[in-house]
């Protein structure tokens, strides 16, 4: 697969990484600013979330409405979101509008107005999002699972706490912006119908003279308790569990990925087959993989009627344990076919590629070519995955349930 990927790290520490995609008319971009909720001071949880809402309320020469209208007129679909490690600003539009969009984003990142009179509205939105979680049992269970499984600040949820959000003042917002929004470690990724040299020049002009020091790194807290039941009068019980896996930086990463896909990669994967297809115990069941630089986890989820919840949990755990008994040749072949086609199809999506090259740069400090990934997928065998499973068995898992009654595990 022929790919044209470029990268450049400016003197101030900002990296531009780009992929030229022939045959598309659009372009997508991501700014990853190392300012996620892990950087929120413990008594101001929710700060990154509120700051992110404030970022687009006026920047540079434009007030809030002018900024919004300018972006809308570029046909830009956009989203600003807070993760644990980064604040992500995503946008996608016709490639010819990309330079104008980046000009405006330079203002958003470097000269946001953060208008004090709009703080109250931003807080009200953040509080409503936090409350809204109570009406989404699945999300609530998964948020709680991450909090119980990963030590603080890695287990945090962007939504923060009521006290944290209410404690914010315009000064706290501005200080946090000044502390966290700076070029060092910030990644801008662009994928689509772009030409490298003019893009590099443009980004150099917009961000080359941006200065600042990175915020001090976070401290990892103690391991939280690994069992939690949230009592709620619901039709279904939510079951969420997690156990450690190797991170994306580890040599056995692809084996871990292979394992998760044996569990939950396609329709014939084990969890779907054994728990849903054979026994009709649930509608939704899946496992996924979540990584940080230094640690990762397999996360599994099922939602099921209360009186069958114990049975669902037992069967799910049995499937996780059964992995160590053996993995079939044709299971791995199906996992490989699925991963390979997802990989090739990602070349049809500017957003998918902009996302991949940015996260590769963050985790690995380089961009993997599709050929490299494909070779690694092709190298998977039942033996290599089994080796991984046996050296990383399901031992200490975290379990969060939400529903009328706790479950036994």
């Amino acid at each position, binding site marked *: 697969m022929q790919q044209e990927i470029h990268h450049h790290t400016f003197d101030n520490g900002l990296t531009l990484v780009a992929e030229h995609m022939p045959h598309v008319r659009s372009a997508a971009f991501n700014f990853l600013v190392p300012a996620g909720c892990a950087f929120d001071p413990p008594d101001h949880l929710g700060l990154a979330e509120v700051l992110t809402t404030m970022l687009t309320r006026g920047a540079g020469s434009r007030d809030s409405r002018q900024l919004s209208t300018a972006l809308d007129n570029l*046909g830009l679909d956009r989203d600003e979101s807070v993760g644990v490690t980064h604040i992500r600003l995503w946008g996608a539009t016709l490639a010819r509008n990309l330079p104008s969009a980046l000009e405006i984003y330079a203002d958003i990142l470097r000269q946001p107005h953060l208008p004090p009179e709009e703080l109250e509205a931003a807080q009200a939105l953040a509080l409503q999002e936090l409350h*809204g979680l109570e*009406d989404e049992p699945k999300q609530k269970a998964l948020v709680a699972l991450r909090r119980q499984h990963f030590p603080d600040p890695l287990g945090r949820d962007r939504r923060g706490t009521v006290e944290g959000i209410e404690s914010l003042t315009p000064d706290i917002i501005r200080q946090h912006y000044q502390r966290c929004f700076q070029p060092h470690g910030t990644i801008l990724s662009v994928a689509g119908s772009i030409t490298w040299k003019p893009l590099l020049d443009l980004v150099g002009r917009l961000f080359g003279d941006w200065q600042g020091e990175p915020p001090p790194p976070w401290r990892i807290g103690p391991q939280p308790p690994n069992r939690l039941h949230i009592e709620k009068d619901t*039709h279904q019980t939510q079951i969420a569990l997690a156990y450690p896996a190797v991170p994306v930086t580890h040599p056995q990463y692809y084996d871990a990925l292979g394992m998760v896909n044996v569990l939950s990669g396609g329709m014939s994967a084990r969890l779907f087959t054994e728990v849903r297809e054979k026994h009709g115990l649930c*509608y939704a069941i899946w496992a996924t993989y979540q990584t940080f630089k230094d640690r990762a986890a397999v996360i599994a989820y099922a939602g099921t*009627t209360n009186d069958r919840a114990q049975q669902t949990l037992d069967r799910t755990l049995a499937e996780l344990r059964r992995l160590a008994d053996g993995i079939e040749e044709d299971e791995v072949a199906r996992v*490989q076919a699925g991963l390979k086609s997802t990989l090739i199809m990602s070349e049809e999506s500017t957003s998918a590629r902009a996302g991949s090259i940015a996260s590769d740069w963050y985790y690995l400090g380089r961009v993997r070519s599709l050929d490299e990934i494909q070779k690694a997928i092709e190298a998977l065998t039942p033996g290599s995955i089994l080796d991984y499973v046996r050296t990383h068995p399901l031992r200490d898992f975290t379990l969060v349930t939400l529903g009328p009654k706790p479950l036994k595990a």
Partner: protein
Amino acid sequence: MQFHHTSLSNGLQIIGETNPLARSVAVGFFVKTGSRDESPELAGVTHFLEHMIFKGTAKRDAFAVNRDFDAIGSHPNAYTSEENTVFHATCLPEYLPRAIEILTDILRPSLRPEDFETEKQVILEEIGMYYDQPSYTAYETAKAAFFRGHPLAGSVLGTPESIKALTRDQMADYFRRRYVANNITAVVAGNFDWDGLVHEVSRYCQSWPRGEAPREVRPCPGNPGVQVLPRDSVVQEHSFLISAGPAAEDDLRYAAEVLATVVGDDTGSRFYWALVDPGKVDVADMDYHGYEGTGAFYTYLSGDADEFADSLRTARRVLDQVQAEGITEEELTTAKSKISSRIVRGSEKPMGRMQALGYDWTYLKTYRTVDEELAAIDRVTLSEVRRLLDQYPLGRVTTVALGPLTRLDS
């Protein structure tokens, strides 16, 4: 890109747009049947049948269906709406013949009684999952109220009672009536060979029977009114407002898309500035949905219950103002930029293109290139939006609010 279409002697239609530069190919079988085609005792059968289609045929059990799809790395899925059931898959070009073979095979399902009983449990789980989501209940209640007396009033999922009562024979009969060849269109977009495709589809589908699959089509002016559903266990207030809109096949649908974008897009819309920007609610959006013979505008609001009555009044004021004064030239231009950009980006993936082709063919009985789609949006004028508003007043609205509130003072 080139468009092709043909029909088999039994009336099954095949359409396709070839794009030799695409990396993949998307295929969908559009069966023109949905919840609106169900009699009350069959509520939910279309969606349940969609699940049963994946449970196997004379030559494959459910596990073989899943294994065979996975073996070619395809991403199969299906959805059921009020008026369509669509089975689709994307795969690499070399696997298209195998994807066609599997899809056409499963579209003649065995509907084995033991699979029927197991899958019934899965459907009940799916309903249980939605019942735990307040926004879903608010939506279903509002839709049922708005379309009261119209076939679109029914729920796609059905109810636990209707699903429990459903028999395998009722489903088999529904299948025989609705999955006739002349009620199905095969739609393909991406990198594939047209002649080869036609050959494969005819080989597997030419023996499918033809039959009558009628549908009752009539407009629905809606039933204005307010319903409050108090729920102690729900934290936020969730509200739907529904008013009538043009049908999917009506030329006014482009103006309807523009109007919904101006009023309720998630950035820079009237609702955004009136409700989200000041932090009154955290969600306020409007969508236009065109159905065969009728259409509707759906507004969804969710936010803190304390201020909600006021937020709802604000939303009504926004609607009233747009109704009275229309939208501005600037808003029209901005909405066109947004919609056009989404059309272009959506069409870059074969899956997106396949859906657009299937939609145009099902509702408009025509093919449109991406550029024709863009041109249609570009042609919308302020006077057309005015005509739309006159014909489908936004104030004639059905409102449902679900959450802590016991009443709405208005």
